[in-house]
């Protein structure tokens, strides 16, 4: 069985009482609706014949109507609640899996796609129980109606089918089947959207040139074409509506006519004729019931997309903790993507700069060191322990990571800084904020640490400093700074470096950097080129090599 189908089955089975309630209301409601025309017909006949049983039939009618109403209401409630529960359960599973698998998911799916799959698609899978019972609820009365009609008079069933065939035949002759023109509409829509995105991306140019009105009109250029195609679509829909709207009433009229002959001949009672007409209407809805199968197909394909996310492997964590140590990092025979590092030691407590042109593998090396990615083969060790053998909490407590463009996760500034720690006290918070030189602007914020992140417009440099504070609060042995000071001015950058050295001097620092001064100030420089270590040593030694100097010259200012 496909992984997607397994998800659908689970959604139906694990929904416990809801699925049972859905089935009960669907089948109960269908049966009641099926019984009503017959019982109502008998009631009329009994009253006409002044049969004392009429009151019993009437009571039956009332009971059946009550049952229909109850089943309808309960069914609607069960459908909504069951969908919500099934979707929520699956969604939470998907989200936890995404969190567990980490950046591997983002590498595989764009962010918007993750949201769609965890949001819309789980919702669709959640509707699977409803689709199954919904199809049941439509199929039971249609099939039942055909049986009931046949029981009343087989001729009427024949009339029903002959009527459907004949009416469709006639309609098809008179109504040209319109090929849909949805394509043209979507094209005009896409062009308009693309023009708008272009204009928004060009906002600076448009603002400087003072051409906003002209650009708005330019973007709206496809509008007349959009309307033309839109009206064509409406026309096609209207024509299809004629077809759909005529079949059922005309079949009913046909059944009434044939039934009328039988009534005149005394083969049918008035009540039976009424019941037959109702059954014809119910039975003619068969084509609609088949459409419900589409709901299940949608759930299945949505489940397939959700299953793809769940198929991304989660990295496993061990149970070991770290021995006492200073944060020595070792690479042994590491290969992964385009990076090959046979052997590299970052001594505990040192500052090691990683330099190289863009695309030389600097960030991947940093990611391996912090286990944000796993190499294809080889091992990275921290104080002698292979990273995958460390427990999750031990690993993250030991290693802090600061990014060039940190994403600030958390409701308030304090939450952002404390993301890597459960609950740091104020003194800790102050210390790391000061070390990252973020204390100045945090103090200026309207509510200090309690300022909501959403309401605080921050520059790139300020975000970087919050990202640094967050990493400082976390990495007890190793700090990986991946171009994390690129938006700081040189003085602040130097101060941050000094604060780190002074504060808890023992921490190892692995610094990916573009700036010459950073490399010059490091204890050791790892020089990467095309995914291999081209040089390892002190900056002043490497500087003699013109190729090393070229890394810093003619690049960005």
């Amino acid at each position, binding site marked *: 069985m496909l992984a997607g189908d397994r998800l659908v089955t689970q959604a139906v089975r694990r929904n416990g009482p809801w699925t049972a309630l859905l089935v009960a209301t669907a089948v109960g409601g269908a049966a009641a609706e099926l019984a009503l025309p017959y019982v109502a017909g008998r009631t009329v006949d009994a009253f006409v014949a002044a049969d004392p049983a009429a009151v019993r039939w009437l009571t039956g009618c009332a009971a059946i109507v009550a049952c229909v109403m109850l089943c309808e209401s309960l069914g609607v409630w069960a459908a909504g609640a069951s969908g919500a529960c099934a979707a929520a359960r699956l969604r939470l599973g998907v989200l936890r899996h995404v969190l567990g698998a980490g950046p591997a998911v983002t590498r595989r799916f764009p962010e918007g796609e993750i949201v769609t799959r965890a949001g819309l698609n789980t919702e669709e899978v959640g509707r699977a129980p409803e689709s199954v019972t919904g199809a049941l609820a439509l199929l039971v009365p249609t099939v039942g109606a055909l049986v009931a009609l046949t029981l009343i008079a087989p001729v009427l069933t024949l009339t029903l089918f002959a009527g459907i065939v004949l009416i469709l035949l006639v309609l098809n002759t008179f109504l040209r089947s319109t090929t849909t023109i949805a394509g043209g509409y979507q094209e005009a829509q896409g062009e308009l959207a693309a023009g708008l995105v272009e204009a928004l991306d060009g906002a600076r140019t*448009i603002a400087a040139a003072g051409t906003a009105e002209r650009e708005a009109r330019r973007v*709206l250029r496809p509008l007349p074409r959009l309307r033309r195609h839109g009206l064509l679509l409406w026309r096609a829909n209207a024509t299809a509506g004629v077809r759909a709207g005529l079949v059922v009433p005309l079949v009913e009229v046909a059944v009434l006519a044939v039934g009328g002959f039988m009534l005149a001949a005394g083969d049918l009672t008035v009540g039976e004729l009424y019941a037959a007409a109702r059954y014809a209407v119910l039975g003619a809805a068969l084509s609609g019931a088949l459409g419900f199968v589409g709901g299940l197909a949608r759930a299945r394909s949505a489940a397939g997309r959700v299953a793809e996310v769940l198929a991304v492997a989660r990295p496993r964590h061990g149970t070991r903790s770290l021995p006492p140590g200073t944060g020595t990092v070792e690479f042994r025979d590491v290969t992964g993507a385009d990076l090959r590092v046979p052997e590299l030691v970052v001594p505990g407590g040192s500052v090691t700069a990683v330099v190289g042109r863009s695309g030389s593998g600097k960030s991947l090396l940093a990611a391996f060191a912090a286990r944000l990615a796993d190499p294809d083969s080889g091992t990275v060790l921290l104080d002698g322990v292979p990273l995958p053998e460390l427990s999750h909490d031990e690993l993250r407590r030991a290693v802090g990571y600061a990014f060039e463009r940190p994403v600030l996760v958390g409701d308030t500034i304090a939450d952002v800084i404390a993301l890597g720690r459960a609950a740091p006290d104020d003194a800790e918070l102050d210390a790391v904020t000061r070390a990252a030189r973020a204390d100045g602007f945090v103090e200026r914020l309207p509510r200090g640490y309690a300022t909501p992140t959403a309401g605080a417009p921050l520059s790139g440099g300020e975000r970087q400093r919050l990202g640094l504070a967050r990493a400082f609060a976390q990495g007890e042995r190793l700090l990986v700074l991946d171009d994390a000071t690129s938006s700081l001015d040189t003085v602040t950058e130097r101060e941050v470096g000094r604060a780190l050295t002074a504060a808890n001097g023992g921490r190892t620092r692995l610094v990916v950097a573009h700036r010459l001064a950073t490399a010059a100030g490091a204890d050791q420089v790892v020089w990467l080129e095309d995914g291999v270590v081209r040089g390892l040593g002190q900056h002043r030694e490497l500087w003699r090599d013109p190729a090393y100097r070229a890394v810093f010259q003619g690049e960005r200012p």
Partner: protein
Amino acid sequence: MRALLWRALRREPGQLVRICLWSLVEAAPAFLIGLAVARAIEDGFAAARVDVGLAWLAALGLAWVLAAVAARQIVLAVAAIAEPFRDDLLTHVVGGAVRRAAATPGAAQDSAAVTRVGLQVELARDAFAAVVTTVRGFAFTVVSVVLGLLTLAPGAALLVLPPFAAGLVLFLASLPLLTRRQREFLLADERLAEEMTAMAGGLRDIVACGAEERQGARMATHVEAQASAARALARATAVRTAALGVGGWLPVVLVLAGTPWLLSGGAGAGVVVGALAYVTQSLAPALGGLVQGLGVSGIQLAASLDRITAAAQPPPLRPTRLRPASAEVRLREVTFAYGPHSAPVVDGLSLHVPEGEHLAVVGPSGAGKSTLASLISGLLRPDAGEVLVGGVPADRAEPAARVLIPQEAYVFRGTLRENLAYLSTPPDHDPDHDPDHDPDHDPDHDPDHDPGDGDSDGAGPGAAELDAAVRALGAADLVAAVGGYDARLDPGALSAGQRQLVALVRAYLSPARLIILDEATCHLDPAAEALVEHAFAARGGTLVVVAHRITSARRAGRVLLMDGGRVQAGTHDELVHTSSLYADLVGHWQPEPVS
């Protein structure tokens, strides 16, 4: 937004009349169904007069066919109202988005949000059409059924209408609750989507911080909140369904219970069946349609319009523009910060760039170079101090006086000629300009076959001028590659470098005497960049280049070095000796003597 709705409804009175007339035809079966069934049985089949019975049924069948034709006409008439409504909304959304983006060019443009609003427009159009169709259908059907029942048997009307009215009242009473629940659900759903988007965007950071567990717990609360809102909505929907049941099903029971009474009043069994047909075939479906129309589409329409209104705010007022006397730039004690609580990016900067100078601006990223470019081109106003271009405040200088080419070149879908002439044609000043420009004034006009579009014809650059500019900037290969000046450009198919070249030729052709290139050559190779900078230097006027490569600084007459509020100006040779940062940037590193 309400005004938009009314305008849409009232703009086409002809279509409204058309809808009403066809609705009469469409409602004919609703009037006829019970009557025809009752008469066919009573006067026809039950009275052994088959021909009369068949005649009544034929009349009913004919009414159905006519009703189907009428339904088609109604869809078309509703479309004729809904399509202009959609156009209005789109014009509103696009105009608002472009104007707002131009008013706040520094802010990050969330084009995804704008696209979502575009989706809301489509939803609003469909919901609008559905509401108009169903509410109208309900009204006509109910009137027809009442008339039909009164014609058939006034007694039956007494049995049918009170429970139906009760159901309708119950439904209307449940509507506020349903609307509230629907809104709460949409909000919870949106909040969950936002949380999931934030989580997906911050996944790397969350994992790096080891905060997966806590983030998971946080997501669980939001997932649960959304599910609980969905369950509350389901309960409200169940209440609504019960109300619908009262209005649709109770009359059936009452008609059956009242059968002896109807029969004693002289009606036949056919009349009872006819009354039942009115309820089950006309009234119940119409009520269902109304529930769908108001309870689902109506709420959708309100929600969509809310979001469209929220997204499109009125455009800011533009000050009158002044013509600068020259192309010199003067900054006096200029301070600028992005927020009231942020540290200033530019702090007390004074600078004089005389007309004709070639200035390069260098510094680490985040040092305020682009901010300086925005201040000089008037996109940003200083918090303190003043920025003057030719003696006029920069934000009030005529757009034609200066050109800013940002790193992200703006190339739009149009011909290459249109794109190149963009800055050589006067901007927004056509006299009949109307911000709510209504494109349906001229529905047959297909602008796709009219690249001029009335905006950009007139004084564009001549062929010789175009050729000269293209040659000077080394863009001849690009012109050939896209297929000449009149080829239509697909911006997505051009490389970033090609787009920059288009923007640069455009700037070169403009009449402006002050050119500001904000990393505008970063996607060109170094040789092409050098050619471009030499061409602009030779073009005359003032040139300010925010340098992407440090080599740009060597070509400039003067260099401005920015570093966290500290600013130094001088020639390249001066700065190499006086600034360690500049030396650092240009790759001059001298091992410090060991003391």
